[in-house]
């Protein structure tokens, strides 16, 4: 077993152990979950060195038979694209556990068991190199989130959970059909083998077939992202989910969709991707502006942050379909950034909710006076979210827009309007929540951050600054892998019109 296998299977082992912890023994369950997730996190850090030094191709490859016929293999590996997403997952899992420490009061051990199972599914999605295995993990991730929302959510939790589940399922069934079609054409589910067949010309898809396959994958991913107009499950899911569920959903689960776009849609169906790029870019920029405008008028904090996610993830899609190095690098970086800053936002909204038991913005006002530290942390997170330079989002947004400006300048102009609007809705939220005079009742129920809360949020604040100031820790590995993907996406596109990418060598 490689280190990666351990990182993948430890959470599964943890899940199996946790479901046998008796329900009344909640503390033991919490401690076990935290312990396991921390071990997984530290083990995942050991993955970094190998991947970054071994930039071309996959590290920690494990390729064993799972099902003999049809030939489905346990084929996993890690590259610059998946590495940071795996670490994002392993970082946010213990944080989510810590956030839920006090405020989950029924079926405690099951709650933490599902969180850990979710980690298993998510890591599996990011490291699978077999299409069927990928599909399996995709569905595995769905189940615990369904229960997290459905059991521990707010009032309309059942509605939201079912909507979340069915919507995602509807997309993934299409993807399954496409996967089976590909298998019939190639005789394998192996991702690297299929890409190789495409490269060598052994597998040639007709334009029509490629388009349909592309769309099947794309719709599954677009629902997950979520791309406008497939986004309406997201606000419902977020509003009803418990804090930890919102954090994992926004920070990691949505990235399954954007990851899929980069990993599968581009290299497997490059011609179709190029053909549809104009439409997709259009949807992305509409989503950026639309999500921001709708976020602007939300009376509910979680809905506001949810719509802001629609806007932020529009940037990711815009970057991916710019087919430029900067756009793709920025898109992948933005996946991580969004995970950090929106995860932190949901956490902080959760902190507010735990104190005041309301998600309505109008229930707040003047929080900065009784809870100055909470106000500062929220401010830093807000600033990260609106793309202030030297914090993480700026680097991603800049690269996305820089890349997009080379392939589609009008779209870039519209997307940049989203940057203005992000300041509007976030600062307005901040003003209405934290500024002004605090009412008597609010002051009484608004203690400042406690130790546990600090511990949960500090790593995210640290990452915001680190990723904003020194992106060189992360970007080289991402860039190397993206260069490969761009190469794979380009090769058979030359016949079509290649995007006019003018890249003058830098003087340095």
């Amino acid at each position, binding site marked *: 077993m490689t280190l990666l296998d351990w990182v993948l299977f430890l959470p599964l082992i943890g899940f199996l152990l946790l479901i046998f912890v008796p329900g009344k023994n909640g503390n033991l369950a919490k401690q076990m979950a935290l312990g396991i997730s921390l071990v997984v996190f530290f083990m995942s850090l050991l993955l970094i060195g190998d991947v970054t030094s071994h930039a071309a191709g996959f590290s920690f490859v494990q390729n064993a038979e799972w099902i003999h016929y049809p030939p489905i293999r346990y084929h996993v590996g890690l590259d610059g694209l998946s590495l940071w997403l795996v670490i994002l997952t392993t970082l946010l899992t213990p944080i989510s556990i810590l956030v839920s420490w006090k405020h989950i009061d029924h079926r405690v051990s099951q709650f933490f068991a599902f969180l850990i199972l979710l980690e298993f599914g998510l890591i599996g999605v990011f490291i699978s190199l077999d299409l069927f295995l990928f599909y399996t993990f995709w569905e595995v991730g769905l189940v615990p989130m369904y229960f997290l929302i459905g059991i521990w959510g707010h009032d309309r939790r059942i509605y939201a959970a079912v909507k979340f589940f069915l919507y995602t399922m509807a997309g993934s069934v299409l993807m399954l059909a496409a996967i089976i079609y590909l298998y019939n054409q190639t005789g394998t589910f192996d991702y690297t083998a299929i890409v190789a067949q495409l490269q060598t010309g052994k597998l040639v898809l007709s334009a029509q077939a490629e388009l349909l396959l592309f769309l099947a994958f794309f719709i599954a991913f677009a629902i997950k992202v979520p791309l406008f107009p497939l986004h309406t499950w997201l606000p419902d899911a977020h509003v009803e989910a418990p804090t930890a569920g919102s954090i994992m959903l926004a920070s990691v689960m949505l990235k399954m969709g954007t990851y899929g776009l980069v990993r599968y849609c581009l290299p497997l169906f490059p011609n179709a991707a190029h053909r549809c790029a104009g439409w997709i870019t259009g949807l992305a920029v509409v989503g950026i502006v639309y999500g921001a405008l709708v976020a602007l008028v939300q009376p509910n904090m979680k809905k506001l942050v949810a719509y802001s996610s629609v806007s932020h993830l529009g940037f990711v899609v815009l970057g991916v379909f710019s087919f430029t190095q900067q756009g793709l690098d920025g898109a992948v970086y933005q996946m991580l950034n969004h995970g950090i800053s929106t995860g932190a936002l949901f956490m902080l909204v959760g902190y507010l909710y735990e104190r005041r038991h309301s998600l309505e913005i109008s229930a707040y006002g003047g929080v900065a006076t009784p809870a100055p530290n909470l106000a500062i942390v929220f401010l830093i997170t807000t600033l990260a979210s609106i793309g202030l330079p030297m914090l993480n989002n700026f680097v991603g947004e800049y690269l996305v827009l820089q890349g997009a400006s080379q392939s589609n300048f009008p779209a870039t102009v519209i997307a940049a309007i989203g940057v203005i609007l992000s300041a509007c809705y976030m600062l307005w939220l901040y003003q209405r929540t934290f500024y002004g005079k605090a009412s008597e009742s609010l002051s009484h129920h608004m203690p400042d951050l406690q130790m546990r809360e600090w511990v949960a949020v500090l790593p995210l604040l640290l990452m915001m600054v680190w990723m904003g100031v020194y992106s060189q820790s992360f970007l080289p590995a991402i860039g190397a892998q993206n260069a490969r993907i761009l190469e794979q996406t380009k090769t058979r596109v030359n016949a079509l019109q290649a995007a006019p990418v003018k890249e003058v*060598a830098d003087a340095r």
Partner: protein
Amino acid sequence: MQLWLIPLLPLAGFALNGLLGRRLPKMAVNAIACGSVLLSFLWVLKTLAELNAFGGGLQTAHVEHYFTWIQSGSLNIGVDFAVDRLTAVMLLIVTGIGFLIHIYATGYMAHEGGYYRFFAYLNLFMFFMLVLVLGGNFLLLFVGWEGVGLCSYLLIGFYFLEKFASDAANKAFIVNRIGDFGFSLAVFLIAFHFGSLDFGSVFAKVKDMPVEATAGWMTAIALLLLLGATGKSAQIPLYVWLPDAMAGPTPVSALIHAATMVTAGVYMIARSSQLFLHAAGVLHIVAIVGIATAFFAATIGLTQFDIKKVYAYSTVSQLGYMFVGLGTGAFSAGIYHVMTHAFFKALLFLGAGSVIHACGGEQDMRKMGGLRKYTQITMWTLLVASIAIAGVPPFAGYYSKDAILSAAYEHAPWIFWVGVVTACMTAFYVFRAFFMTFAGEYKGAKADAGHGHDKKHGHDDKHGHDNHGHGHGDPHESPPSMWIPLAVLAVLSAVGGWYFNIPKFLEPMFKVPEEVPGNGWTVYVSIAAGVLGIAIAYVFYVLSPRIPDSLVQAFAVPYRWIYNKYYVDELYDSAIVDPVVGGSRSLLWRVVDASGIDGLVNGVGKFARELGGIAKRAQSGQIRNYAAWVVLGAIIVIVTVSFSGGAR
């Protein structure tokens, strides 16, 4: 040369005061805040001396590379600091004036809550402002640009309990974001066309490019940069945030919203002069925007009664002059005015702060008057500043304003003439303010403890108030920590224009426009305009104070327009803000999102359920029914197959 120390020192001050300030005594907070800026100033002096900037040195930029910030494909953006003569001027202004204002603030803010927070923000501002002027590429300039905007937001909203303060803060940030929208698009285009964002390589490439070949996209870049500059430097159409920004404490108004940050747009255009010289049409637009703003803001300044508002519109107007300088190709004259303006406008604001302090928080000039008896030092220093801004030789403002106006005459005489009229109005309103505060008798209420507070809330103007009430009785002079900076600035306002010959210093970067013989008379015209303005103010507000009132009655309608700032805020609200918010709420959210898209999604779900409801009847559980379905199915299959040519 360790340029990084220059911004890092204030950053360290910010970190120390921000993290520990709550537990530190005021003296320690002061020492950290002022000390870090002083050290930074000294380090600037040392660096410039080493580079022999005051001798003949520093003809080209001195660049230091620290680390790679963003690297993607062929695009490489470093954290590089660079000093050339333009940066040298800005560094001296920012750290020098910044230090004086820090000292002043220790006195001014002495009785305020959140003392450490104030100084932490102020230090953070110094950090970003220094990054702005030191940055060696467009993106690093943008870092400082956004960073100072953040600090401006934090400091305008310093009194965040008051809604007008947080409103003003949001307005400042968001309006600036509109400008930044332009700036960032310009950055994308620059990186695309030059393959780099480094000033050195971009400007070197521009120089070799023929003007005709680049006209299209260079015009776009220049226009977008101009949009950025109009946001930060409060020009038409984005000036609206600056008057409201006076909600911040007065030292903030002096440092950020008069002397340094708002000149960032001027700096940025001067920095990009090579690009603008390749887009002559845009340069002309810069001049027109500048003169229009200068004139327009000056007219509003004529009518305001809040002393800080008068100076705020004056700042907008003076920034307009700087743009005229830039737009007429006299880049060094624009920077010259940045410097002299930093002297006299910082002094005006600090003096205003001293006046407000003396009157226990009052900002309405109608309730002042007669302060010459109480605040001698403030009066004399403010007099110097007022003469300087009026453009009377040999005070500082005369030199830079003359440089701009003579360049304007060369460029287009009408700009010169509008500039002269504006100069006259400028002289009038600053002396109007001066006479209203210092001449006549004191009109404020005396000796009722706490009146500062009462006045503050009962005021007819909802914006722009310092929470600076002490509630003492008679007006009184400010402590030495406040008047010593005033005195230093007064000296600079008096002789700084003559002593620091900026156009000459900047000659290696910007060619000095040649003196055209025969235009010597323009100097006398602009001096005469200033003197005339002072004279009218003297007549109106000292000799026969009835005149203004009767004029107001005679021109009631235009007066009301001007007094209400031409209703531009209201126009923006009803034309932009309300439609966006209202449309998003009632159309996008409620109709498109909730009923339209989500309605469709739930409709599909409902449809599937109803379909299932029909289909479930087939699952009757009766064998005979199933058998019937099987037979029916078989028939359909057979028929279909045989019609389509049989099974092969």
